[in-house]
């Protein structure tokens, strides 16, 4: 099981969230901490971070915009290999990833297409933990 991660959110608030660190670089050196979000239609990650770590994105947006938290982002949709570490071992899968710009949000989003179709999820909210099993 993976414990929810507590992050400060303002002066006194702290929130525990199901977060996972997703790598777009094969060396797995620079992650994008992302929120498991069943309300997201797909995988939404920062285009800025992706470009900074060397991911080649289409010069122009190639998919409909997404609106997250009231912010409209342009989408560079790319089929890309993603990696996470589960139980100390790297797990990789191929996904259609919406690399979004701008992306001012604290975390990436791991949504239905590209994530929840690649993993089975057990979420134990009361205990603030979850388990992921790759579908293989």
């Amino acid at each position: 099981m993976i414990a929810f991660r507590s992050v400060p959110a303002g002066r006194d608030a702290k929130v525990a969230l199901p977060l996972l660190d997703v790598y777009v670089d094969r060396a797995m050196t620079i992650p994008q901490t992302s929120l498991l979000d069943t309300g997201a239609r797909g995988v939404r990650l920062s285009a800025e971070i992706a470009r900074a770590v060397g991911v080649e994105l289409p010069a122009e947006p190639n998919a409909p915009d997404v609106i997250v938290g009231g912010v409209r982002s342009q989408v560079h949709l790319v089929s890309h290999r993603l990696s996470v570490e589960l139980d100390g071992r790297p797990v990789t899968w191929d996904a259609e990833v919406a690399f979004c710009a701008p992306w001012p949000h604290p975390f990436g989003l791991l949504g239905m297409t590209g994530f929840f179709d690649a993993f089975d999820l057990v979420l134990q909210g009361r205990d603030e933990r979850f388990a992921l099993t790759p579908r293989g």
Partner: protein
Amino acid sequence: MGRWYTRAVPTTRPRYQVTDTGRVGALLDRAAAAWPDIAHDRKRLLLRLAETGAEHLPQPADDLDGTLRDHAGQWVAIRDGRLLVAADDATAVVTWLQEHGERAEELYRVPASVEDLPAEHGLT
């Protein structure tokens, strides 16, 4: 057995004796090679070694929370529960990691408030 003489010092705190030999001596030799500007001062080398080691220890969770609150709204990279770098934009964080050959375990923008957390429009 030799005796260790010292003059009275204005402290009631514990004092520790470290002998510059064996493993300690080898560490100080490495430190001298790394920091030639203070290579002549073995006591300063010892202190810097301790400080450098402490910087690589995991930060207690409460300390990290406090540190992160100071960086609300900024992008941060974290490893071993320790803040590596914080900056106003994500590219600066990635560039710093690359230039310093550092690997991060977490990279995100510290939420400024609960309302700052993302939710995709239309599917909440």
